[in-house]
């Protein structure tokens, strides 16, 4: 993954490793509890005991089918997407050394949206598999372009991503304004949602997310050095160019796969790294680990909200995270101060 020499943890991180482990375990317990809750709450409430029975003693009743075939896959997807976006956010903020960076800043989300729009206009992005394919294609091509143009410096990378986002969004908007049917198809995708994915071919994107999360953990120690600045990192023996390239690939895969399967979900990639930065105490590995746990918790909670907010039907989870994300970001800034950003 990297040729970087071992990098010492920050002194503060070394002193707080026991509480950090305890916090991580607490986070995992919270994640498990929220996951069980998410499989019990919805349009048809299912008691927690029945949720457990549905998972381990399945009898095919309506409750069991709802838990195992509708909410179960949905909860797993929330975990995967939440972790992907949060870790991608942690990586991009570290890489760009910009607290306002979020995964979409590299143009991946705009690329997916552009591809969905073009695919719909051509009549090819039909069905969940079609949408998924075009979203992945758009994400990857956009990321490649951004990386090719902006690979030399974090600032150039971000500027390229922002510029390409503006261009792709503008062209896609023009197409949608001219083609009402395309707009109609796009608008359902454009508001991120975890609903109705249980029948979609998700194995490949979820596998890509899991592999990239593992890669992010492996890379995180090298990123520790990069977070101190390029000169310091080089002095410490880190291969700056290679670390940055691998980080870019991971961010692209994580964000691209998450966006492809769930649509754009704002704020998770921006807010989670801020929420866990304080307990991570300057350590990128802990930042990534905490993000990997808190991202799914946040998305599961938002998804529960998306199911119960309306008396009939659902609110897309992308809207709920947007509502949660704003206040949470403000809270984080007030709680931890601008220094944490």
């Amino acid at each position, binding site marked *: 993954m990297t040729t970087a020499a071992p990098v010492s943890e920050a002194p503060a991180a070394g002193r707080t490793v026991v509480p950090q482990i305890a916090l991580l375990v607490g986070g995992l317990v919270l994640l498990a509890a929220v996951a069980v809750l998410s499989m019990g709450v*919805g349009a048809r409430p299912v008691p927690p005991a029945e949720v457990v029975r549905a998972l381990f003693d399945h009898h095919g009743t309506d409750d069991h089918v709802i838990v195992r*075939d*509708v909410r179960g896959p949905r909860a797993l997807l929330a975990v995967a997407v939440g972790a992907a976006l949060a870790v991608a956010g942690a990586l991009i903020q570290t890489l760009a050394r910009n607290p306002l960076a979020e995964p979409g800043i590299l143009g991946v989300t705009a690329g997916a949206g552009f591809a969905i729009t073009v695919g719909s206009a051509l009549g090819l992005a039909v069905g969940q598999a079609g949408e998924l394919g075009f979203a992945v294609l758009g994400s990857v091509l956009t990321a490649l372009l951004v990386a090719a143009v902006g690979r030399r410096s974090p600032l150039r990378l971000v500027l390229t991503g922002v510029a390409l986002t503006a261009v792709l969004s503008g062209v896609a908007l023009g197409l949608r304004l001219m083609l*009402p049917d395309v707009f109609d198809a796009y608008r*359902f995708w454009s508001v991120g949602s975890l*609903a109705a994915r249980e029948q979609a071919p998700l194995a490949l994107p979820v596998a890509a997310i899991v592999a990239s999360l593992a890669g992010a953990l492996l890379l995180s120690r090298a990123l520790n050095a990069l977070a101190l600045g390029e000169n310091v990192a080089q002095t410490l023996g880190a291969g700056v160019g290679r670390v940055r390239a691998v980080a870019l690939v991971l961010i692209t895969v994580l964000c691209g796969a998450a966006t492809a399967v769930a649509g754009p979900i704002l704020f998770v990639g921006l807010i989670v790294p801020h929420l866990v930065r304080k307990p991570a105490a300057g350590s990128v590995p802990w930042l990534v680990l905490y993000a990997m746990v808190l991202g799914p918790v946040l998305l599961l909670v938002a998804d529960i909200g998306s199911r119960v907010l309306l*008396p*009939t039907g*659902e609110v897309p989870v992308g809207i709920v995270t947007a509502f949660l994300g704003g206040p949470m970001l403000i809270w984080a800034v007030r709680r931890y101060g601008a220094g944490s950003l």
Partner: protein
Amino acid sequence: MSIRRTSGLVGAVSLALVLAGCGSSSEGGPDTAEQSGTRVFTADNGKITIPADPKRVVATGYAVPVMIEAGAPLVGISSWQRGEPMMTDEDLATYKKLTKVAGEQAAETNYEAVAEAEPDLIVIGVPAPVLGDIDVKRLESIAPVVAIGPTVPSAWRELSRKQADAAGALKKFDAAQDAYEAEAAELAAKYKDVLPKLKLGHVGAYGEVAKGTFQREFGGSWGTNVAEDVGAKYYGKVKESGPGSRSVSEYPSIEELPAAFGEADVLTYSVNADGSVPESVQYVLDSKLWKNLPAVKAGKTFPIRYTEAATYGQALKTLDAIDTSLAPLLKR
């Protein structure tokens, strides 16, 4: 053709009821006050003086298929692609031949093209709120404008009659209505020992069917109102009634399938005119919750084509589709 309507249209249809203050009079048809060669007609946009016997009519929106079927003296129409699969070959040829003076959306009205058509009457068949997208004053400078738009789905009968009446084309319209009612009565007699005893549920495919939800249509909705003329009884009602089509259909979570259709003896679902299953309906059909339903286990699920019928001619096709689909019920 996709049977999903655009959100704008559905929203507009819904809002039409909210704005009932500018809707048509309950009696429908022309007012009694008549002058030489003209009459006063009550429409969504007020009481309008129109020619008693129009010779050059421009029609838009839902009025397009009505006018073509009724043989109105059309000189221009809006594009109406969603209705093409339900038109007869003869009507489709007429539709294609006519000058298009507007696009699919009300905002795409070409005022110069309308003026060039030199109409003596303009019939706008869009929901009342969508009238805001049209410069009615500019159209009124060309010819009298009557707006007669859709409200609740099952009201297409009254609204189409009113549109045909405005254009002075009731003769052919009445013939189509008679044919429909005769066919409906015949089918009602055919299914009288079966249908009225059954509790039906319907999965629709229009409007805002968001991911993870399905459209349940109750009695009086697009997917059910023609079947009701045959004697079908769709049970239940919406949890929270809204304006327009929201009063007869709703979009629950897929998790509510058992609660929605658990009591149903028979389930029907909308399919496209070519028989293909819309994506939102296919999602329901592929769900294990659907396969758990008693009616599904009993094999009593039936696709219905032409559920968007909004004219008597189109509804005749719906009747045939219903008869073809429900025929197995008679053998059980």
